[in-house]
């Protein structure tokens, strides 16, 4: 219900009012008796209802005053009475100085306005002489007279003969603009022409043109639908016939055609029960016309409403045949033609009521403060006269003030009723400057987009949401909870409130189909009953209207059957229609890009600094501001990012499952908790792992990988995903890597080893000792593999690693011994140990040797002892334990370069077994040693060692070689001695030669260093060219020399 109200302004003036005119603070009332009453017209400060007080009464004639007007510029009052138009000077009204417009005799009506002549600019201050001119147009019998256009002003009248007599004249343009070039002249309710004024053309300064003769466009259902819950609907009872008959008789007075100016040069003309909108060119401006239940009695316009008085039968008295129609003021919203309210004037005690006049109030100076234009104010004055003769004489007519509600309240009301487009029309008509933000166009257009969502016009709704930067969380809330919105979901009946509409706002106007049909049928019947009273066309119009009204409104109504093609989101469907999803993707994709732009200038805080999105209540998400992303705070921006990405992934899951993977892999702000269950439900495990990885939620990813692996049989499917994942983690995640690789080592250590041996920078940078320690505990075989990799492939030199590898090799050999298994394997392992002990340079032998039991692995022990420098012990092992003389000799060969007497040591071991060992001296290996390495053995200790009785044969080779060796050495020494001697002599000769050189110092000789004379100073001679310098210049000069030589 819109907030219009009606108040008595002048109840019961005890006379019949035939004309009223309000101008500024005066109300002029013309009576049937020919008197003119002047009332004050004031609006008290504390009240929005005007007050009127009788000031004066002038008797101007004996005939009823038919029309009153005020020429504001020339301060004259126009009175039309007895077909004569008379101008009275307003200040001198008592003096009755009057001008009768003789040129305009037989006048039926007039209209007046003010205009700004061409070439004059409207001055900003409204001083008296502002160049404005009055214009008066009088409609006479078969002609029209125009005053105020020529040079003579009001004294000069231009005439044009017409085929009919104008009964009503309307200026399409508002006052105080330029000269109206077009004026509507109404002859009958069906016929009108356009009068054109062209002062520039002397021959043709007045001309007429016809308006379109095609029938007016049909009405939409909107103008007839009463506001919800309105008791004063346009219901016509079954007994309408008699009542209407009575009405027609009563209403015969209003034969004059009706019309009003609206905005933008448009006029509304009442064509019987249809209100047609026409342009200044005489064409229909709209595709719809306004529908009244019957021809209106009065018509007025005050932006943005059309006010009309139509007789309506009271529904309650439908059964009584004496029902009398009540004049009802219908108020339609001009931009959309929706009927906003119907007001009934109070019924008189007897008989009916006729409304003869309605006029739009005129303010002297319209307020410039926008807010003031929005408040409740009086828009219309209405004159009513009882139809009962006695009552009419006793009480006379009444004047009512019609007040509009506050525009803001009206906007809210329209929104509440689900008529957002009407609200938009209203705000567009009055301008949004004085309104609060929630009543302005951006907000209303957003709300309209919400209603479009409900109607299935997803794409255009999304475009609107994008324009107004609507919080994405709100958009997502409109989608089904199960697939898209989750906790954000809001049921359809709360959508409007979610977007900030007034409480209880509906998505579409509520229409009770049954009631509507009933009403429509009632109208049809009653109209049909009227027979020839109405034109056929209007009956058709009504039927059409009735048909339409029974279908729920919405665009789909226009094309029957189209409804099927626009799937509408239903609460119970988990999956929204395709078009809705596409539109949502469109919206989110755009938001995503805008987000990227905002992030590039306004960096996001890390997600980890805030609690996850899933911890935010739906309300908190809904409350994110709907402003451009660049204006959000970093935290808000992060939240919006999370909302967008989480929403996007959910839409993809429904509409583009393949893209889920792409989204998970790129940088994103998806809230994992929100989507992980959805991803799992759709078996998008791989994508979920990617998402975890991107979010550094490696623990979850690895757990998931493990779960997935359990279902794989083939080991090539089972392990590599986890292995690859672990290989990418790097040192910072070491403990996780170790923890998560456990199960692979349990099942397949060889595969597991790849985690630590892959040729990846992340893997190579893992701390080796930690890995080694872990592997040692987990799986020794893998640990060996790892150590072999780092030592052999990566060249690790660290003693710890070498020690550990040796130790592990050793342990492995030992472990193999315990088993009854194959000897070969043990041999292989042992060989490997020995090979390592020999090849590696950095292990610490004493560590391993302490682990060796006294008599196990003698070769290894010997190796270790050798490394420790305990050659004797080592050799003893070879000789006594192993009795492997070639190995012992080999050992010596290896050790010889650093140990001169190693062979002697071996020989001693051979020949002088320790007393407690109880071994015999080993003569034959000793002798073979002697013969093979005789030159590496000092002869005399050998002789000491040799047992007293040795066949010469056995040792002759040794002696021979030793002697020969001794001789060779002797000869070499002799040769060398002589060579050295020869060289010494050569040098002596050279020195002698050099010492024989002389230099001559004369007085003239100058030191090449300091360029002073040498004189008797101490000198130095420089070789080889014999330069002479001062002694103290020697060092610097020789430095210079050596430098010049390079």
């Amino acid at each position, binding site marked *: 219900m819109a907030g219009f109200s009606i108040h008595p302004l002048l109840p019961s003036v005890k006379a019949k009012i035939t004309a009223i005119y309000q101008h500024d603070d005066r109300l002029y009332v013309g009576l049937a008796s020919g008197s003119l009453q002047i009332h004050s017209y004031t609006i008290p400060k504390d009240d929005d209802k005007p007050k009127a007080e009788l000031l004066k009464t002038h008797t101007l004639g004996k005939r009823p005053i038919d029309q009153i007007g005020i020429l504001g510029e020339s301060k004259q009052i126009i009175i039309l009475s007895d077909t004569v138009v008379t101008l009275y000077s307003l200040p001198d009204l008592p003096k009755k100085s009057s001008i009768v417009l003789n040129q305009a005799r037989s006048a039926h009506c007039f209209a007046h306005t003010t205009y700004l002549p061409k070439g004059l600019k409207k001055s900003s201050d409204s001083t008296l002489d502002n160049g404005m001119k009055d214009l008066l147009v009088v409609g006479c019998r078969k002609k029209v007279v125009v005053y105020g256009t020529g040079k003579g002003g009001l004294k000069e009248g231009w005439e044009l003969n017409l085929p009919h007599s104008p009964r009503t004249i309307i200026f399409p343009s508002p006052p105080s603009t330029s000269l109206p070039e077009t004026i509507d002249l109404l002859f009958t309710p069906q016929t009108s022409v356009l009068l054109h004024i062209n002062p520039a053309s002397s021959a043709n300064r007045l001309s007429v043109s016809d308006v379109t003769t095609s029938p007016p466009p049909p009405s939409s259902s909107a103008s007839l639908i009463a506001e919800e819950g309105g008791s004063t609907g346009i219901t016509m009872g079954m007994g309408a016939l008699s009542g209407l008959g009575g009405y027609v008789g009563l209403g015969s007075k209003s034969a004059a055609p009706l019309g009003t100016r609206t905005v933008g040069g448009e006029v509304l003309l009442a064509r019987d029960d249809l209100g047609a909108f026409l342009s200044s060119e005489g064409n229909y401006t709209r595709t719809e016309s306004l529908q009244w239940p019957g021809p209106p009695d009065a018509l007025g316009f005050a932006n943005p409403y059309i006010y009309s008085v139509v007789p309506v039968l009271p529904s309650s008295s439908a059964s009584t045949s004496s029902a009398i129609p009540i004049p009802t003021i219908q108020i339609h919203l001009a931009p959309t033609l929706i009927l906003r309210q119907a007001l009934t004037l109070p019924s008189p005690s007897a008989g009916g009521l006729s409304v003869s006049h309605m006029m739009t109030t005129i303010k002297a100076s319209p307020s410039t403060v926008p807010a003031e234009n929005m408040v409740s104010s009086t828009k219309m004055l209405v004159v009513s006269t009882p139809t009962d003769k006695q009552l009419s004489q006793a009480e006379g007519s009444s004047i009512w003030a019609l007040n509009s509600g506050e525009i803001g309240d009206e906007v809210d009301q329209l929104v509440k009723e689900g008529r957002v487009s009407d609200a938009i029309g209203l705000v567009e008509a009055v301008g949004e400057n004085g309104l609060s933000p929630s009543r302005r166009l951006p907000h209303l257009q957003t709300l309209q987009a919400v209603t479009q969502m409900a109607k299935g016009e997803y794409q255009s709704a999304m475009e609107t949401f994008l324009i107004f930067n609507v919080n994405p969380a709100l958009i997502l809330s409109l989608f089904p909870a199960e697939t898209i919105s989750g906790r954000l979901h809001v049921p359809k009946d709360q959508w409007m409130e979610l977007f900030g509409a007034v409480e209880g706002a509906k998505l579409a106007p509520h229409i009770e189909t049954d009631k509507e049909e009933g009403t429509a049928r009632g109208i049809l019947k009653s109209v049909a009953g009227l027979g020839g009273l109405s034109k056929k066309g209007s009956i058709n119009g009504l039927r059409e209207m009735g048909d339409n009204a029974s279908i729920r409104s919405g665009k789909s109504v226009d094309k029957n059957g189209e409804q099927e093609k626009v799937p509408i989101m239903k609460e119970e469907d988990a999956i929204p229609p395709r078009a809705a999803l596409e539109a949502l993707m469109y919206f989110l994709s755009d938001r*995503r890009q805008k987000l990227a732009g*905002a992030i590039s200038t306004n960096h996001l805080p890390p997600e980890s600094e805030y609690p996850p999105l899933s911890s935010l209540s739906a309300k908190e998400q809904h409350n994110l501001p709907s402003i451009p992303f660049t204006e959000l705070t970093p935290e808000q921006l992060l939240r919006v990012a999370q909302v967008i990405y989480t929403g*996007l992934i959910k839409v993809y899951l429904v509409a583009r499952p393949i893209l889920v993977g792409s989204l998970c892999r790129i940088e994103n702000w998806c809230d994992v908790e929100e989507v992980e269950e959805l991803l799992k439900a759709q078996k998008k495990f791989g994508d979920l792992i990617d998402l975890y990885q991107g979010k550094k939620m490696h623990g979850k990813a690895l757990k998931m990988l493990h779960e997935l692996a359990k279902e794989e049989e083939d080991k090539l499917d089972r392990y590599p995903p986890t292995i690859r994942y672990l290989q990418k983690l790097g040192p910072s995640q070491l403990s996780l890597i170790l923890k998560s690789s456990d199960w692979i080592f349990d099942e397949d250590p060889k595969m597991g080893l790849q985690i630590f041996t892959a040729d990846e920078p992340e893997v190579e940078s893992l701390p080796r000792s930690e890995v080694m320690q872990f592997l040692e505990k987990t799986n020794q075989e893998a640990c060996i593999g790892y150590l072999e990799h780092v030592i052999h492939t990566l060249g690790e030199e660290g003693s710890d690693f070498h020690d550990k590898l040796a130790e592990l090799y050793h342990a492995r050999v030992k472990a193999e011994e315990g088993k009854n298994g194959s000897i070969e394997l043990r041999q292989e392992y042992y060989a490997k140990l020995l090979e390592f002990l020999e090849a590696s340079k950095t292990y610490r032998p004493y560590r391993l040797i302490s682990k060796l039991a006294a008599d196990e692995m003698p070769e290894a022990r010997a190796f270790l002892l050798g490394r420790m420098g305990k050659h004797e012990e080592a050799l003893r092992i070879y000789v006594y334990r192993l009795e492997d003389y070639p190995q012992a000799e080999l050992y010596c060969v290896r050790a010889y370069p650093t140990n001169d007497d190693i062979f002697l040591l071996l020989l001693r071991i051979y020949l002088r077994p320790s007393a407690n060992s109880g071994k015999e001296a080993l003569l034959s290996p000793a002798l073979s040693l002697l013969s093979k390495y005789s030159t590496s053995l000092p002869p005399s200790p050998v002789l000491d060692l040799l047992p007293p009785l040795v066949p010469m044969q056995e040792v002759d080779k040794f002696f021979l070689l030793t002697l020969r060796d001794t001789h060779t050495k002797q000869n070499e020494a002799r040769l060398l001695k002589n060579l050295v001697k020869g060289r010494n002599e050569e040098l002596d000769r050279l020195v002698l030669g050099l010492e024989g050189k002389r230099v001559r110092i004369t007085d003239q000789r100058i030191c090449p260093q300091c360029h002073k004379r040498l004189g008797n100073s101490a000198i130095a001679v420089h070789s080889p060219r014999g330069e002479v310098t001062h002694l103290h210049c020697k060092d610097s000069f020789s430095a210079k020399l050596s430098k010049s030589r390079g």
Partner: protein
Amino acid sequence: MASRKKVLLKVIILGDSGVGKTSLMNQYVNKRFSNQYKATIGADFLTRELVVDDRVVTMQLWDTAGQERFQSLGVAFYRGADCCVLVYDVNSSKSFEALDGWRDEFLVQASPHDPENFPFVVLGNKIDMEESKRMVSQKRAMTWCQAKGNIPYFETSAKEAINVEQAFQTIAKNALAQEAETELYNDYPDPIRIDSENSQNYGCNC
């Protein structure tokens, strides 16, 4: 296809900054090359007409700024694309490794109806540099392309105009096939249509 109406192919070129996207386009459209590097700001497009399978088509090449990932180009930029060209520099491993990300990014932003069969073409640019500088082998690139659904691969040099013409001919051919595919989609009375119609109406959102 029966209508033989004029075909406009929208091709998006993506890749890391400095791989030569603008140069390739300039070489193809204007037959020009400049050694100077000037970072592209935002996005720009060039068009060239060519004949593919006896049809004259206009190819609209959208060059993007690789430098900062995705300024606010708005939703319309990637929408309605008929082919996406991924460019990397064969002398930079990093630019090659970024291809995955560019591909994913494109798919997410363009949300094509059939992401699995959307045509991509990969260009390995700057092969005119000396062999010793090369970081990505042809084999490595081709393996990647194969794994992503047999993406056509070309090694190009915008500087020496090597393979540029051939590469863009393939791009146009694949884009045309995609265009035909979308038309097929459009033949269905599917609400999807709303979308593609709109994308045509949209010029630029920036």
